[in-house]
């Protein structure tokens, strides 16, 4: 790559790292996610700092047009990051669902307690007096 391209790259990388660190310091970004991006940044720093590195590696790998290597590596890393997000998202959705289910059950139990009944369906006589027959769900004999 040309010297000008390298300077542009270095500026971009410096800017990106600055933004990431700022976001983490302000707690807008969880540290575990920042690590991902900082790794990507560190990677780019190396490429920007050692001008011959990319060309040399590309030549070793038999890549004739050197910038392709940069794009290839970038894509690979982005793919990993996106996969990581899918994983996190699935986990989060599971947790939200479980919380929603839990909240529905607890809401019922709280309402039953507040109305002076038993939080269970119990109507077997050991529960607090005044358990209303309605609100227990019992409809059979």
């Amino acid at each position, binding site marked *: 790559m040309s010297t000008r391209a390298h300077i542009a790259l270095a500026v971009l990388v410096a800017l990106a790292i600055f933004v990431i660190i700022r976001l983490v310091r302000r707690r807008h970004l969880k540290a575990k996610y920042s690590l991902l991006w900082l790794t990507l940044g560190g990677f780019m720093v190396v490429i920007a700092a050692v001008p011959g590195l990319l060309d040399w590696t590309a030549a070793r790998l038999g890549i004739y047009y050197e910038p392709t290597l940069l794009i290839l590596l970038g894509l690979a890393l982005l793919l990993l990051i996106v996969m990581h997000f899918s994983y996190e998202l699935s986990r989060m959705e599971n947790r939200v669902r479980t919380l929603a289910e839990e909240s529905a059950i607890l809401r019922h139990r709280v309402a039953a307690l507040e109305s002076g009944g038993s939080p269970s369906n119990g109507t077997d006589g050991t529960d607090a007096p005044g358990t209303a027959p309605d609100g227990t769900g019992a*409809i059979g004999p």
Partner: protein
Amino acid sequence: MSNTGPSLAATQHTTDRILVIMPAFNEQEALPATLAGLHATALPLDVVVIDDGSIDDTAAIAAANGAVCLQLPFNLGIGGALRTGFRYAVESGYRRGIQFDADGQHDPEQIAALLAPLDEGADMVVGSRFAGAGAYRVGRSRGIAMNILRWAIRRLAGQRFTDTSSGFRSFGPDVLAMFAKEYPIEYMDSVEALVMACRAGFDVREIPTVMHERSGGVASNRSFRLAYHYVRVLVSLANTPKVRRRPDAAGAPA
């Protein structure tokens, strides 16, 4: 059952009774008749209606008609609503559950028949629309789709079912415990749940039942959406792990 026993609120009341688990999304029109129908049976039934983020008066109407109502804060889909019901059943100490539609397509008179195999050792019973009784008809493309699924399920479950998507089912305590922890969440959950139960080693049976045509509303099956879920279900079925979750016969409660 020792590790998955009821955690709270188990009473004599709940262990002897049967919990009807009824997911409901905007079912205020159908609910009173459906609940009245359950009322009319001679069985010791309790009903829990899971209001899956309805925007109508489903919750109030369920409570007014003698059901426990669990209100989800937002729409989870039928799988999430069912799992809420299973969890409620286990936490409250019920040992038998019935999955029952709110829209009135299931017949309360057939619950007794659905429960009978549980007494003979079955863990889960599916009420089939196609196993002989009744004259429930589906469209042609839907029929073909169901045939493909039926084939895939026969391979995976090692057992033949005539109606894999029926939502009229009964469950024993061990299946309730499994589904309280883990239940398929997306559309066509019933198919996945059936395979899950079979692959976990449970005794799953099928009995013929008669079902009513849907009284109101249109079944929400647009073809693209159906096709997507089709592929998704086939993929996830293929990935259902074969894990023995059924307790040993010696340790299983009668």
